[in-house]
């Protein structure tokens, strides 16, 4: 047996967009074990809940993450609405679904770009981000914010989208989808991408289940776990099924995300077709008293917001569990036995969002 050495990876590393530290235990070029450590960007957002009134905390919940911000805000609002027993209008549910799916498109395209960058495919990286710009423009036109939408509130949504804009959004999706298909073809069929990703960082179905992998990391290993199937917002009324791949390697996780782009577009189309008219919010009276675990599906996996009210304007407790935290044990499993040169690609394949994870 050769000598083992420990090599630090991160928190500052060219391939990592955010700070996570991994101690890689190496035997020659092979990674034997990994010790992850976090805590570089902790902001104490959960404690802030005691100092801000519950309707204003939506803005803070949204700023937990800079990519899937809308879904954070929505999940928090869902929790408060359940505690207070508020019936959110149907139209608000559909609008939330549309914006959630646009967030998913934006997040997946961002990730696909970063992933292409991590394997040195700069051209594809720029192409993915060019498509992402279209999604951001739609977000800005409908909510006022490109990344932080701020359009969700307790009891409904802040802004309505008129029928004309909805029709335009549906029309524009056609051209967008055409561009995406061309890009997806490169990710799924190009030999240079496949040779870099096939068989790298394999996570078996059993390991994914035991380690609690969520989102595309779990679905890439054949575990059909998708919180959207619980039917929150308007998902219960739409026809879709989770995208699942069986191989469990980086290529499978990439394929799940690429195919989810088209699944998201389909969900947006269905929502626009079926969106009912009517009110977009209900009036909120009183204060929350009680607790609730609110679940939703982020682009990275299942997100949980726990809220506990004590009958005052200030919540007693808020707890956020983001999918990246859940995907760290599967990441350790994937890295064990891989080559040192594959570490950046494998770390990126779980789509780590550290700012989100440490709140």
């Amino acid at each position, binding site marked *: 047996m050769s000598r083992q050495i420990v090599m630090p990876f991160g928190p500052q590393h060219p391939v990592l967009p955010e700070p996570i530290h991994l101690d890689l235990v190496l035997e020659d070029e092979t990674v034997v074990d990994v010790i992850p450590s976090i805590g570089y960007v902790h902001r104490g957002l959960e404690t802030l809940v005691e100092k801000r009134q519950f309707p*204003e905390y939506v803005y803070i919940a949204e700023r937990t993450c800079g990519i899937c911000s809308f879904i954070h805000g929505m999940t928090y609002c869902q929790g408060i609405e359940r505690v207070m027993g508020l019936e959110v209008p149907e139209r608000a549910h559909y609008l939330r679904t549309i914006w959630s799916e646009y967030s998913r498109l934006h997040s997946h395209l961002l990730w696909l770009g970063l992933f292409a960058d991590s394997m040195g*495919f700069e051209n594809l990286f720029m*192409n993915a981000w*060019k498509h992402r*710009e279209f999604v951001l423009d739609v977000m800005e*036109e409908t909510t006022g914010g490109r990344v932080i939408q701020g359009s969700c509130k307790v009891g409904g949504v802040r802004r309505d989208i008129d029928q004309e804009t909805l029709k335009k959004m549906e029309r524009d999706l056609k051209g967008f989808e055409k561009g995406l298909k*061309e890009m997806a073809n490169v990710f799924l069929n*190009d030999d*240079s991408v496949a040779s870099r990703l096939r068989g790298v960082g394999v996570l078996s179905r059993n390991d994914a289940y035991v380690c609690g992998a969520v989102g595309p990391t779990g679905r890439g290993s054949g575990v059909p776990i998708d919180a959207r199937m619980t039917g929150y917002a308007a998902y219960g009324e739409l026809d879709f099924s989770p995208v699942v791949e069986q191989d469990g390697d980086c290529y499978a996780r990439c394929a799940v995300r690429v195919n989810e782009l088209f699944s998201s577009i389909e969900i947006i189309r269905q929502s626009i077709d079926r969106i009912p008219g009517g009110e977009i919010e209900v009036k909120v009276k009183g204060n929350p008293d009680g607790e609730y675990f609110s679940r939703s599906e982020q682009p990275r996996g299942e997100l949980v917001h726990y809220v506990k009210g004590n009958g005052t304007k200030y919540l007693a407790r808020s707890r956020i569990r983001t999918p990246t935290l859940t995907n760290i044990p599967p990441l350790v499993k994937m890295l064990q036995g891989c080559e040192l040169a594959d570490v950046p690609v494998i770390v990126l394949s779980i789509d780590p969002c550290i700012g989100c994870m440490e709140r």
Partner: protein
Amino acid sequence: MAFFEMAKTAIRSFVGKPATRRYPFVPGKVTPLSRGHVTIDVASCISCGMCMKKCPSEAICVNKDEKTWTIDRLRCIVCNSCVEVCPVHCLTMDTVYSPAVTTHSGLEVFHITYVKPEKPPKADSVDENKEQA
């Protein structure tokens, strides 16, 4: 599996127009809903302090005695909360971003020029005075 799948897209990108605009020579894209920065109409602000109470980042300070409305541009998260709660609609959201701050604090102080209109004397009380006289 195939090779050079990206070639078609790459050639098109190379020959075609650039996907980005030449900012700042060309102005940035804004929509009517874009959140740029908060502006105040000092002539109609009644110093009620609702914006200060509802600001999630505590960026606004309303001083009733000195008649000032102060905003810290570095703290403001441009969430539109103050604009929504303002009872006299003196706050508006501009679609253009505020220019880069040049001071350490980013504080901007506005002097409120609103003058409370004097209430015309009530018709009943005038009549009563006449009667008493």
